[in-house]
């Protein structure tokens, strides 16, 4: 399979590229770790040499002479312990520094990736599933830098192997040949091992992610599963994928199960070979018995660390995949461009929408040719059937997304010409779906900015959003933690906080996207009246169905299938636009029809 091996070699090449990147980023830490590892490697070899020296100069002479030489014996003991201390220091240095390097790279990548998340336009977020972005910043980064943990050890092993080879050559060139046969064999076996293993490991990894996705989705939809009685089918769906994961893991296990014992057996066979050939050399006087012991000990010592090379190679394929995914995020282009224009900071904003078109998918426009004006200080209601593009329009108005065609202007300035941060300083959108940060009430309202809003201002915003009551009932008022790990709030309470978040900024343009849908009618009424009386400095655009809300508007823009079907005052539209009339008077008509029906029934009876 040439293609597969080509693939493997390119993966290896890229893997070394990833490692190279890390080494260039952290040259000092890496050097330190490798040096520590080299100390460890050298001391591993030295420990066998120390034992050999002890055997040769302390043990055997003592046996031969029948009396121990205390001096040499003490020296031998100190040598053995001293070497071990250095070796331990090498281990500690290597582990600590390898850890520091790995964690620094992880943290660096995480910062870079999340900076991208914050920088890239919302349209990019729409194209990428949440789960994928989360794993990019989580497990993908972990996988990318995983080879860094065993890397210094592996580099150290190379040093060790060279030292050992030199050592054996010095002892006896003939014995060295045996060694030179065994170590390449281990290396080749390792390579074959990794080539066989990596596609299997990647498949298992993929399935693991899929199993997790199914569980996530299924638990998220637990209520639907329960209410429709689909527990069995969900369990089957999950088990089917879990079983595929099982098979993939067993396939991995079969390869590991074969190569691990082989890799362990090879050095042992090496020791036996050394014994056999060493004895021959002993007979011909090439080596002493002490040297023979030393070389065989070396082999047993090397058996384990040599596998560190394998660990690095084993991590490479996963590392490359993780790295590629992270790079996709880091290289994502299509950033939002900003211009130099500044917007006024006071007074209600004037909004003009010119021939606006937008679609999430090419060929399927959500909005086409939308055109309307909102004069400063006016309140405009956006009305339209479900799926007519109202929410998308609100996002375009605050430049969360850019139009495919046409323009949005605030105070005459195209939003794309406005400087970064200016639009959000002027306009506030309260979206349909509330999002709260894992933070205090205060933090959720000010979002760190809001130019250090005073507590009075915060309470005033809460009052206007009809949230003062429940916030003051919270255990720590403004400093109560909310969000996923904080106090739990109802949908209506969350919506009111989101509203207060917008109000505390005293925005020049306030956009409400059906943002009181979970609030009681009475409470909503109080909010709306408060808004009308309390914020004369805002232009308000509100997505609404409720008549009370629409009644507050100076003008209505009626959308149908992504187009402005009509605009005018509520009364005008009621009089001339059938679609609008059907929509807003649906309840009343229903009542009338039912009354007629009831009357009919009474007549019949």
């Amino acid at each position: 399979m040439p293609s597969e091996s080509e693939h493997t070699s390119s993966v290896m090449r890229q893997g070394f590229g990833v490692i190279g990147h890390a080494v260039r980023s952290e040259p000092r830490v890496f050097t330190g770790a490798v040096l520590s590892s080299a100390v460890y490697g050298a001391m591993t070899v030295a420990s066998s040499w120390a034992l050999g020296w002890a055997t040769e100069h302390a043990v055997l002479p003592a046996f031969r002479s029948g009396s121990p030489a205390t001096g040499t014996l003490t020296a031998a003991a100190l040598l053995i312990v001293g070497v071990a201390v250095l070796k331990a220091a090498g281990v500690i240095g290597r582990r600590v520094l390898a850890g520091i390097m790995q964690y620094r790279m992880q943290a660096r990548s995480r910062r870079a990736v999340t900076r991208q998340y914050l920088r890239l336009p919302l349209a990019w977020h729409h194209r990428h599933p949440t789960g994928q972005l989360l794993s990019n910043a989580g497990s993908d980064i972990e996988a990318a830098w995983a080879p860094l943990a065993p890397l210094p050890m592996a580099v150290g092993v190379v040093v060790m192997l060279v030292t050992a080879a030199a050592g054996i050559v010095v002892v006896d060139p003939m014995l060295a040949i045996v060694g030179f046969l065994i170590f390449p064999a281990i290396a080749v076996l390792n390579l074959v091992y990794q080539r066989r293993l990596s596609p299997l490991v990647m498949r298992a990894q993929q399935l693991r992610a899929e199993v997790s996705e199914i569980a996530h989705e299924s638990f998220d939809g637990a209520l639907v599963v329960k209410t429709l009685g689909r527990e069995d089918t969900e369990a089957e769906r999950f088990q089917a994928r879990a079983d595929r994961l099982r098979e993939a893991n067993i396939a991995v296990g079969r390869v590991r199960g074969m190569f691990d014992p082989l890799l362990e057996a090879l050095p042992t066979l090496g020791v036996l070979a050394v014994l056999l050939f060493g004895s021959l050399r002993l007979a011909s006087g090439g080596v002493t018995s002490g040297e023979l012991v030393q070389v065989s000990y070396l082999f047993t010592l090397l058996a384990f660390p040599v596998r560190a090379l394998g660990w690095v190679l084993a991590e490479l394929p996963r590392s490359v995949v993780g790295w590629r995914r992270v790079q996709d995020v880091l290289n994502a282009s299509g950033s939002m461009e900003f211009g130099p224009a500044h917007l006024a900071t006071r007074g209600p904003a004037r909004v003009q929408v010119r021939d606006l078109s937008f679609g999430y998918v090419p060929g399927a426009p959500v909005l086409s040719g939308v055109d309307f004006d909102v004069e400063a200080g006016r309140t405009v209601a956006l009305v339209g059937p479900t799926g007519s593009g109202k929410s998308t329009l609100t996002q375009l108005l605050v430049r969360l997304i850019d139009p495919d065609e046409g323009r949005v202007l605030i105070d005459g300035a195209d939003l794309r010409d406005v400087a970064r941060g200016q639009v959000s300083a002027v306009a506030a959108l309260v979206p349909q779906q509330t999002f709260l940060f894992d933070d205090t009430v205060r933090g959720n309202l000010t979002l760190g900015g809001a130019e250090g809003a005073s507590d009075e201002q915060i309470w005033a915003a809460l009052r206007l959003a009809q949230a003062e009551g429940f916030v003051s009932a919270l255990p720590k008022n403004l400093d109560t933690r909310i969000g996923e790990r904080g106090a739990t709030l109802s949908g209506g309470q969350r919506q009111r906080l989101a509203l207060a978040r917008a109000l505390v900024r005293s925005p020049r343009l306030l956009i409400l996207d059906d943002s009181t849908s979970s609030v009681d009618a009475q409470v909503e009424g109080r909010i709306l009246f408060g808004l009308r009386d309390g914020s004369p400095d805002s232009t308000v655009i509100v997505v609404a169905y409720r008549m009370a809300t629409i009644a507050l508007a100076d003008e209505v823009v009626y959308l149908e299938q992504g187009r402005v079907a009509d605009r005018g005052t509520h009364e005008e539209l009621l009089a001339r636009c059938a679609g609008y009339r059907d929509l807003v008077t649906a309840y009343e008509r229903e009542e009338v029809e039912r009354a007629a029906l009831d009357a009919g029934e009474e007549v019949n009876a």
Partner: protein
Amino acid sequence: MTTRVDERGAAETAAGGKAGAGLRVEERSALATLRHGLALSPEFRIGLPVTLLLAVLATLGKVIVPIAVQQVIDQGLKDTTAPDMVFITRAVLLCAVAVLLTALCGYLMNVRLYRTTESGLASLRGKAFRHVHDLSVLTQNTERRGALVSRVTSDVDQISTFMQWGGLMVIISVGQLLIASVLMAVYSWQLTLVVWGCFLPLVIALPRFQRWVARAYTGVRERTGDMLAAVSESVVGSAVIRAYGSEERTARRIDEAVGAHQAAQTRAQKIIAFTFPSTELVGALAIAGVVVLGVELGVGGAISAGRLVAFLFLITLFISPLQTATEVLNDAQNAVAGWRRVLGVLDTPADVADPGEKGRVLPRGPITVSFQGVGFHYPGGPQVLHDVWADIAPRTRVAIVGETGSGKTTFAKLLTRLMDPTSGHILVDGVELRDVRFSSLRERIVMVPQDGFLFDGTLADNIRYGRPSATDEEIGLAMTELGLGDWLEGLPAGLATPVGQRGESLSAGERQLVALARAYLADPDLLLLDEATSAVDPATEVRLARALDGVTRGRTAVSIAHRLSTAEAADEVLVFEHGRIVQRGPHAELVRKDGVYADLYASWAAAARSS
């Protein structure tokens, strides 16, 4: 000014605050957890004796080298100038064969181990997954979604590392320690005592080291959770962050969390790095001690030179299992923690359980529901429903109204048996609701919740979730019956339109339309709508309401709604206040009386109408 925490909020707060509703916390000792965990997966025991035998043989192979060295030195090299080559060759070849056989045993053992453990873990995953769905919504809501997912994914993975490597390593290591000790004792009991004397303090210290490491890892896990939560804000909250220009603040929060995570990782790594080489150092001390004492003994003739050298090799055999023990203990701890969390799920009783085989299967058709003195409170929480008596007649339309926090949703959850009442009885067609089999119950009563959760797939996939056997034509027909034909045609790919993860490619209102179509297709005898059209435009809502009433099909419809147009159309309105039904009757009658309903209606009508 309302200061009361709304119903849903109160439910979750009460449930979250009390352990009573949450997942069972496993309180067994580590060993008991291990035993219990192993017992849960009988697959682990399949062919275990043979696997163990293979493991023992594979371990025995490791003793070959020291023995070979000793034999060669003592027997083959007795005469240092003329080695006994015949003996040496024979010994080396014999050992080589033994090493290869050992490798073969290792291979067979590994394959067997992987097969049994993976099978056991796959079925453990399945069991835990199924049990999560069997738990009541109350229990499910006490856990973060992510935490629940990890109980069937990473927690199980943690067990696998131990089962496939650590568990056997414990057995092998103990075996290796014993074998090494016995062999060492055979060579020289005095030297063995020296070795044990050196290692005993370490063996005592190891558990302490382990506790430090475990504590450090707990820190890392907590910081990982914080870090991922901070990162997820930048993704999930992307719209809000942009709308309010709070990119810098979010970046700062992420940096803090990433920094804390990095610091915790580094700390844990340092602790491990400093404890790990302790075996190495103690090993060196033991070797030095053996060299010194061995020479003393040898001079006295108690041990031969070959035996002393072989003894030194045995020490490395003795050290390596202790070194592995440090890592295995870590694995074991992780596995026990993983098992604890999985067992935590499995040990939590399904408090709202399916009666299963013993349960009653009710025939399809017009349905009668009767609430008889029903009360409910969350574990440890205040009473949220008091002595509710209500009869829902077949083929009627019932509207449930009341302020938030009045008990409407609790009533709905009890009616659909998402929870059981804490007092009183609920009867369906005269049968206690608890005694009805889930398969029968879910066929007859279906609820559409406010948040219409959709699965990643096409529109058709999601609607078909209500009735898996439905054809595309039937789905299309259902959509037409619901008056959603126009909407469907406006979508780029019609029924084949992908809805995205959690249905996020659709608007909130559109998701509700799909959720409704899904329930409509399921065609239950009683359809319960819990604010199911709150984000839908009024015209569509009215159309849907008419189609869903489905009186001609003999269906009963129960609706909870802010919009009182639903109540106007209902045969009976149940008005809830403070967990009690305070008024009941048809709209026309209630609206004329002074009371809660007239007030609610007046304020709704004022908001809904222009004039």
